């Protein structure tokens, strides 16, 4: 207890966030409200999953329950348009996520690790990139591509998706880095590791969960984007664009199947990553505490 910190340090010494048994009485309003809202948010998801199994007569979803079937899953790829759209979305999401992580991580490092002229400008740019309304971003990008007479399509979608994914990657990775503290890199270079080796041997391994998280976030953001894409897509059709179009006249059941599949996959990935993070959490905690 004899460190010379002048400021009080609130996080030290175990402070129970919750009271263990014996409890004081509490009316269970909060939990009821919470679960009610959660329940409501589940409705459309449930509907999607349920109706993806509905044995609809026509190839539009209908309210009447005509019995359980796996038909739509078995004929998932029947609508070439839908399948193409989905594949395009996957490609763009994967590419944009990977590229965003690859070029976004260095930016995060320079923002988290160095003080330099123009840093705050960069920071605000990243912030603005997240904050700007997608309708504006989409419109602006389209005006840009029009003015340079670049025909819209797969490329333009990819370019723009990378642009907005960079911001998400930077935010996630930067948080991770500042959580890590630069001491470890100092230690590495003190132990004869040149900057590159220090990065490969120390920073990167500790960053991996952060990078995964960032990548997943970017992927999700990209595969789910409608507004921006709708401007720069040209004739290319992504999954959300297809769904939006089909929505006007009634969705084909396969859309729900794809939706359900995305849902299940995404959920599992998220849970796995969560567990991963939990494992890394302790290590991060240690480095953080030692900095306090």
């Amino acid at each position, binding site marked *: *207890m*004899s*460190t*010379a*910190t*002048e*400021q*009080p*340090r*609130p996080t*030290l*010494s175990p402070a*129970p966030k919750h*009271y*263990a048994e*014996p*409890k*004081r009485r509490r009316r269970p309003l909060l939990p009821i409200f919470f679960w009610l809202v959660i329940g409501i948010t589940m409705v459309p998801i449930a509907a999607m999953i349920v109706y993806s199994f509905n044995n609809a007569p026509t190839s539009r979803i209908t309210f009447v329950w005509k019995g359980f079937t796996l038909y739509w899953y078995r004929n998932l790829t029947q609508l070439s348009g839908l399948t193409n759209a989905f594949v395009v979305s996957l490609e763009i999401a994967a590419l944009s996520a990977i590229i965003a992580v690859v070029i976004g991580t260095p930016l995060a490092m320079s923002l988290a690790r160095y003080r330099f002229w123009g840093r705050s400008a960069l920071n605000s740019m990243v912030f603005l990139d997240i904050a700007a309304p997608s309708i504006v971003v989409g419109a602006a990008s389209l005006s840009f591509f029009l003015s340079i007479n670049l025909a819209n399509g797969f490329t333009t979608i990819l370019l723009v998706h990378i642009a907005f994914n960079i911001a998400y990657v930077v935010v996630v990775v930067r948080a991770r880095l500042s959580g890590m503290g630069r001491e470890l890199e100092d230690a590495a270079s003190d132990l004869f590791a040149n900057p590159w080796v220090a990065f490969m041997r120390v920073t990167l391994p500790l960053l991996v969960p952060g990078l995964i998280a960032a990548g997943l976030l970017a992927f999700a953001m990209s595969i789910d984007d409608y507004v921006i894409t709708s401007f720069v897509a040209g004739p290319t059709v992504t999954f959300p664009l297809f769904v939006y179009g089909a929505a006007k006249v009634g969705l084909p059941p396969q859309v729900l199947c794809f939706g359900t599949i995305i849902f299940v996959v995404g959920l599992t990935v998220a849970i796995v990553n969560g567990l991963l993070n939990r494992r890394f959490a302790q290590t991060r905690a240690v480095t953080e505490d030692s900095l306090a």
Partner: protein
Amino acid sequence: MSTDQQLYGTDAVGDEAAEPAAIRLDGVSRHFGETIAVDSLHLELPPGEFFSLLGPSGCGKTTTLRMVGGFELPSAGTVYLDGRDVTGLPPYKRDVNTVFQSYALFPHLNVFENVAFGLRRRGRLDRDAVRRRVEENLELVGLAGFSKRRPTQISGGQAQRVALARALVNHPKVLLLDEPMGALDARIRKSMQVELKRIQREVGITFLYVTHDQSEAMAMSDRLAVMHSGHCEDMGPPVRVYDQPATRFTAEFLGSCNLLELTVDGGVARLADGTAVRMPDGGQVRSGSTLGIRPEKLLVGPVGSELGGVDANRLQATVTTATYLGASTEYELSAPWGERLGAFAQNLDPDARLQAGDPCEIVWDPAHSFLLAEDSV
């Protein structure tokens, strides 16, 4: 609870008839699942006393305090505040205030509003009265000019004073302090101790003070209790507890201590190498009981220096290490039978200090040593 009373011989239990104790814990326990944080604790604080809970980390000090403050409910036992059973009352219904280890100042309020918070909640005073009360309490802790500052704009020591004022302004019957100096550095800490003591004397209310720093506890308390894994090891005035600890744990926790095994033959107590030693008066020694001597009670000098009185105990030894600490020197000595002893000498002339390897003479007055019965060991 009788057993405890015999053991601790507390002097407070008798006079319930007169005026009720400011705080009384009656066999209070607190379990967290498996861990027993506090184990049927009995305490009794007469009004106006400065009482310290002293103990290693995790021994249950904070939990005890939190139960008095009403932040935890006891798993068993009763909490009385001047005679009234408050075991179930929520904090905001208790006439008690707390200074938290991390101060827990409200970051969104300035110093004045922080201090005024309690008064406003109670709403017994009009605005001016509140202002006056707050002003005078800031005065009291020597922060007259700081009303408008935000908690982020003041130093740790000042934050500490604000927390104190925020509690005192409500004139509580009892003030609870959980390691209030924990976050301060040695220097500020020292001055705050004096400050705190002064304030307590001025306002004259009961302080229940939690710390794991024994010198802090001894410097400030009228009485202190040494806690160990949830129960009370020893209780009494600092001098008594330091010079005549009831248990080995207390002896060692309150500062380093030489503990020597004794054997008895022919009614004479002897050390490991058979040297006969005089006992403190009234200590009836049995084989297997332990003799305790505090390092500062061991006088160390070059061989043949005539230290101590005629009836002092004497030993020959050699210095193994001498650590210079500025104001004093700490010696590690090896006794004839090989055991290591610690001694502690105030520095006067530099050349009088012994160096590692020097042979030396150790002397202590029997009255300065104490006995531990083996059962307490």
